């Protein structure tokens, strides 16, 4: 029997040489006449250890971190195929504290299975939730989602059950499920990891959403910066169709659901749900006025559920284990687990899935291990380009939607970007305006013009605090979407918590 070796096929591992590593392992094995079977799994989310090489042994999977092509002969000499000792050996994968201390629910299969094997997906609990849902009435599915307390993971934290209920109650023969896979926030990559590492989970969640709301059509709106995810999703869709988990009369249930992939074209604002709908219709991604709500008049004017990738990926387990199970995880009104992402100047970056409530300190210091360059963490930005910059004094804050609101911040899509001693917060504030100017859809003057004005104000040798605050107020009040209305958050939090960078001449 040939030995199974796992080398991630995800975009990050490939950027760090995983393809060359796989070739080297293959040819070294052939030269030594040892039969091996290389599985291109997804990533475990331990980005700091990529490319992560794993082998299946009698005791479980053994990991070798940062495995490079030039390590391959030595790894064979060390007997890595049976878990042999080598300086890059991290021991049994499941026992690595960084992984063992997480609560992997949504990411339980990611990096474990072959992403494109339906058989492995099913052995690891895949399609259990959907099978159950096929025998439930739509109202019963929605009841479970409502009971679970699941909130949207795309940024706003809106209760998923309420959105689904609105679409289910809407009239109209054609309804749609749109998955928002635009993941534009810097510091976030959870959507990418799950789509590359466990694509059938997303498909399962979307079919359940269709069953719950009466939608028989779905589309995944994927950003074009993720070509590897596009390829994996395309294949996964074809495989799911062939196995009758998509299409007509799913598993003989009489229920139908067709799902397609749509690739975006490089626009941050297209992650905003109404701009995304415009984009799907082949138009520029200009934000629509609300009302009407997309739930009532969405894609082609028809009732539409729009949910983030992770929101939809949380659904199958809720149906499997029940809404009540989910509601007991996390804290207060932030239920379930959140896949946080540690990025930027971080020693141990990657995906950390924990129940809501963990403090920032646990994430930044215990998991992240502080900065990569060894300087003290000076700031973190949470929730993408529209998120607040926070100082270490606030790291005691628990990750809970309401707790974050009280400190003027948001959890967003769970991205946490670390900055070391070298960061210039005035530069970061100016960048927030610059990004807004670059990406504004142009509909509202405060956003389009205000951002440019803000950049100019921060370039002046002396900072006019009152003028910047006035500008921010105009942007907050006069912008039709969060792009313009939330750009002041990184700007004003940087000014509030790091005033020393705004008093002297910097930049």
């Amino acid at each position, binding site marked *: 029997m040939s030995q199974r070796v796992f080398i991630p096929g995800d975009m990050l591992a490939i950027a760090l040489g995983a393809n060359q590593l796989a070739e080297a392992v293959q040819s070294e094995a052939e030269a030594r006449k040892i039969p091996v079977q290389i599985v291109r799994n997804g990533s475990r989310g331990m980005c700091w250890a990529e490319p992560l090489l794993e082998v299946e042994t009698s005791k479980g999977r053994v990991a070798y971190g940062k495995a490079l092509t030039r390590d391959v002969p030595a790894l064979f000499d060390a007997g890595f195929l049976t878990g042999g000792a080598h300086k890059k050996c991290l021991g049994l994968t499941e026992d690595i504290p960084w992984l063992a201390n997480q609560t992997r629910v949504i990411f339980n299969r990611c990096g474990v299975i072959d992403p494109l094997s339906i058989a492995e997906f099913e052995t690891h609990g895949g399609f259990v939730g959907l099978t159950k849902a096929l025998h439930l009435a739509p109202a019963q599915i929605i009841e479970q989602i409502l009971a679970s307390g699941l909130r949207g993971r795309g940024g706003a934290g809106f209760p998923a059950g309420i959105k689904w209920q609105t679409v289910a109650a809407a009239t109209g023969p054609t309804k749609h499920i749109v998955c928002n896979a635009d993941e534009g926030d810097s510091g976030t*990559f959870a959507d990418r990891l799950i789509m590359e590492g466990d694509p059938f989970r997303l498909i399962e969640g979307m079919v359940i959403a269709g069953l719950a709301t009466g939608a028989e059509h779905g589309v995944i709106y994927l950003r074009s910066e993720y070509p590897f995810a596009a390829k994996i999703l395309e294949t996964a869709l074809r495989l799911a169709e062939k196995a009758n988990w998509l299409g007509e009369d799913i598993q003989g249930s009489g229920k139908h659901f067709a799902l397609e992939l749509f690739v975006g074209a490089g626009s941050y604002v297209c992650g905003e749900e109404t701009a995304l709908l415009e984009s799907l219709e082949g138009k520029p*991604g200009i934000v629509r006025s609300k009302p009407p709500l997309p739930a009532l008049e969405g894609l082609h004017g028809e009732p539409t559920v729009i949910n983030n990738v992770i929101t939809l990926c949380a659904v199958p387990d809720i149906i499997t284990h029940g809404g009540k199970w989910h509601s007991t995880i996390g804290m207060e009104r932030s239920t379930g687990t959140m896949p946080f992402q540690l990025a930027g100047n971080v020693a141990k970056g990657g995906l950390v899935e924990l129940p809501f409530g963990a403090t920032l300190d646990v994430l930044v210091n215990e998991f992240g291990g502080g900065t*990569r360059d060894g300087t003290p963490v000076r700031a973190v930005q949470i929730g993408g380009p529209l998120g607040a910059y926070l100082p270490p004094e606030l790291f005691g804050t628990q990750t809970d939607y309401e707790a974050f609101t009280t400190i003027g911040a948001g959890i967003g899509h769970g991205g946490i970007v670390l900055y070391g001693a070298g960061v210039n917060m005035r530069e970061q504030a100016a960048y927030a305006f610059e990004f807004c100017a670059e990406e504004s859809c142009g509909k509202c003057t405060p956003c389009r013009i205000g951002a440019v004005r803000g950049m100019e104000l921060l370039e002046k040798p002396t900072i006019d605090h009152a003028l910047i605050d006035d500008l921010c107020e105009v942007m907050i009040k006069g912008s039709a979407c969060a792009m313009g209305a939330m750009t002041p958050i990184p700007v004003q939090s940087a000014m509030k918590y790091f005033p020393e960078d705004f008093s002297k001449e910097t930049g």
Partner: protein
Amino acid sequence: MVQWNDTQANRLIDQAARDGLVVTGALRRLVDHFGYVDDEAIAPLAKAFSRSKAEIYGVIQYYTDFRDKPPGQHVLRLCQAESCQAVGARELTKAVCEHTGLGLGETSKDKNLTLEAVYCLGLCANGPAAELDGQPLAELDSAQITEILRTVQS
């Protein structure tokens, strides 16, 4: 990348319309094939998708991916977003610009190289990140990137 050719472009446009794509789907195919969308495509796109020429122009201008000028033989996209900034993307970008004599968005005179900005590739735990001709790159430093540039510049 293939040199622009109206006949081929029209064929791609008609095929996209027949496949039931929206106009951005056709633009995507044109960019994948030619590297950009030539002005010549606006009229046939307008006809195939029953939209005005101004609308088609608006769509092309709105999306970053739909270049309106041919790129160089190689395209290097450097991430400019926050996570990469935190680990020196600004300095890296400066080094690349100095080394190549190009600014972001510019193409070398010999049409060998185009530099572009990209806002996040989802490799944020391992920045600075970039992408060369579709190949992702991570944990870059300026020595490494100049080495990589040497391979495409020779």
